[in-house]
């Protein structure tokens, strides 16, 4: 593939926070032109989610906002004002995709429901990604990622297993999961449009996408009425498996033994050769005892050396890389995963590259996240021929703007 797969595709991005912006960031990585649309009075709160004291224009200086919004253009438009909606529909007529992650009712209330968008451009691809879908008994429930993982069944399966307590994941897991699925929904819309000329309205309920990630637990529940138990870091098939503390502050090593051969190798490395003949059944029965032996060995090891030693012996093992160590991981470094991009308001830092490594099309990070409203005039002028004089009027009416009207903590 000589060009990026989505070259020439224009996306109008009304999404905020993580799920939607993550989706549109990937669309941008794949070559789409993404116009991030915010209102001067109702903008993406993630800009100021982390209070930055003493920083000028904090909404333009957030590493967190930057993480989900690089490679996009920023256009301000107040969709609650008639002229703002009119201009938006003008953009719709010249775009391929509209994507939003409002609560289910918001687009309809704004008068920007699918039928209206479709009347403007018949083959428009519209992606809605409300937490619980556009229709159904729970459509009005408010769902952020941490809620989605509870309501999808995932939290019920996560836990140490000895105290009955369900656990949250370490992140707002529902968001990036829904985001990546939304990219697939867009690409499928483009495939379908190319085959049939038709547009589509996709109703992506974040909870439903999430439940697909634990499908086998639904098999157990529906076939046998079985509740899959929380099993901590152990595996229901292999043994031993766990996470063991190494030297250093909060440094841990994950180890998993899938076969008798891997067990013999592990037993040899940890100085437990007398245990190397244990069968899977015996290893499961004596799992606590084996954990103690592995933990005693691990406590004397540097984590990186321990991982390398076990891998050299053919035993699956990996460090529990934390948010600092992962940025120093030699493997990710050798793959060029962390990239530093210049930003006009911030010093450089390591940012994640694209996960979709097309060998030939070769997607690369191109530009930092846009400043607030940075491209408003450029886009309204080039696509809609709005004059400079009207632009000034629009700015006075706060239909457009170059700074939030109501800055504060998000």
């Amino acid at each position, binding site marked *: 593939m000589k060009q990026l797969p989505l070259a020439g595709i224009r996306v109008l991005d009304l999404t905020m926070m993580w799920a939607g912006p993550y989706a549109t960031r990937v669309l941008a990585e794949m070559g789409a032109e993404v116009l991030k649309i915010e209102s001067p009075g109702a903008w993406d709160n993630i800009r100021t989610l982390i209070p930055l004291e003493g920083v000028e224009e904090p909404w333009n200086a957030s590493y967190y906002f930057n993480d989900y919004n690089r490679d996009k253009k920023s256009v301000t438009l107040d969709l609650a004002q008639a002229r703002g909606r009119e201009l938006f529909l003008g953009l719709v007529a010249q775009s391929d995709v509209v994507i939003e992650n409002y609560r289910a009712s918001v687009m309809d209330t704004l008068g920007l429901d699918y039928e209206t968008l479709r009347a403007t451009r018949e083959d428009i691809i519209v992606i809605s990604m409300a937490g619980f879908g556009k229709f159904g008994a729970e459509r009005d429930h408010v769902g952020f990622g941490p809620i989605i993982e509870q309501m999808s069944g995932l939290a019920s399966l996560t836990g140490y297993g000895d105290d009955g307590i369900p656990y949250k994941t370490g992140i707002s897991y529902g968001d990036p999961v829904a985001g990546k699925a939304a990219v*697939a929904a867009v690409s499928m819309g483009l495939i379908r449009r190319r085959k049939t000329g038709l547009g589509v309205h996709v109703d992506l309920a974040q909870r439903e996408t999430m439940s697909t990630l634990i499908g*086998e637990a639904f098999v157990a529940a529906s076939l046998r009425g079985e509740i899959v138990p929380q099993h901590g870091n152990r595996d229901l098939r292999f043994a031993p498996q766990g996470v063991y503390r190494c030297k250093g502050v909060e440094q841990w090593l994950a180890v998993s033994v899938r076969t008798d051969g891997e067990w013999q190798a592990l037993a040899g490395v940890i100085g437990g050769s007398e245990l190397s003949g244990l069968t899977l059944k015996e290893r499961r029965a004596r799992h606590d005892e084996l954990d103690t032996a592995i933990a005693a060995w691990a406590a004397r090891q540097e984590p990186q050396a321990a991982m390398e030693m076990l891998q050299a012996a053919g035993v699956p093992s990996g460090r529990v890389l934390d948010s600092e160590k992962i940025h120093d991981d030699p493997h990710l470094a050798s793959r060029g995963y962390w990239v530093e991009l210049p930003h006009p308001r911030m010093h450089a830092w390591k940012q994640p590259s694209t996960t979709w490594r097309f060998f030939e099309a070769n997607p690369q990070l191109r530009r930092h996240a846009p400043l607030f409203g940075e491209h408003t005039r450029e886009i309204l002028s080039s696509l809609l021929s709005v004059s400079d004089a009207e632009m000034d009027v629009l700015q006075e009416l706060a239909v457009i703007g170059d700074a939030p009207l109501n800055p504060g903590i998000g």
Partner: protein
Amino acid sequence: MRAVRRIGRMDEAVLEGVRVLEVGGGFAAAFAARWLSGFGADVVRADPPEESLSADEQVYLLAGKRRVSADQVQLRELALAADIVIEDQKPGTLAKWGMAPLDLRAEKPELVVVSVTPFGQNGPYATYEADNIVAFAMGGLMSLTGHPAREPLMNGGSQAYCLGALNAFGAAVTALYGAMVQGEGDWIDISLQEAAAGMMELYGPGTAYNALGAHLRSGNHVRAAWAIYPCADGYAGVCALERQIPGLFAAVGDPELQDDRFRDPLQRALNDDELQAKLYAWFGERTKDEILALSPKFKVPFGAVLTPADLLENPSLIERGYFDEVRLPDGQVAMVPGRPFLGYPWEPPSELHRPHADTSAVAADWLGLTV
């Protein structure tokens, strides 16, 4: 308005006529191919010599696919007869089998090959041994999960594999679109570690930017208003942003919450333990249903920890036609999560075929061979 072409049928599945070969048989490749099958692709799974999926995983991930046994020569022919190859072998394996992705692509330029492996195709860990927990640990999410006084915790299910599958699915259809437009496919390298490493919420970029050391796991309490609590009949939770705090306090109804020490975001941070104690008591007196009913009323993100069994009876999911039935070879029927999103025709993967059951049918369809 642009002229609209009408070539295909409106109700035709998006991936109708698309051939997908699944090589490997691990969780990630199988899951990615499952979605492609549901959206209408003809998915052929080359069964591995030794099945690594559990019985329940097979029901969920393999239904709707045709299953073949293939030696290396046949596998290569099948790959060249496909539009998309999804594989999760250890890097270098396909080359050893005489079907290196770049060679396949040279022979059939429009082919899309998606490789999904723990650490990607190159680099010092490329051939490391890994399963779900190892990939999950190396992707960084584990360091953020679990109780601060205990060891880091793995998420339920096989989430490292699931993330690989989700990325492989999205990349496959995106590349397929690119191939339709440009006439050329690509080879895509998905690493489970990278799929997770870029989604460490604000903790990843925050640590990289501020250089103040790692952010570690905080159990079920990021802060009082972003937490899971025991409730009268299980567990429930809340995740309120600043703009939702007034709604949360209105729902809770305690007049003390109107004090500045809770209303002001900076003071609230200093009084988080006190707020947490109040919310413990409040959640403890209410059931999951009572708490969930307050979400639309006060526009507050409340949740409840539901199990798959609960969800099979959830009225909203039933109304939205979410679940699919899968028929097993012995006649039993399982209920499984269906389409990841609504909008396109979905053909529920409804039959679980036996291993190798379709070897001669696929040889006839794809390769024109008759036995």
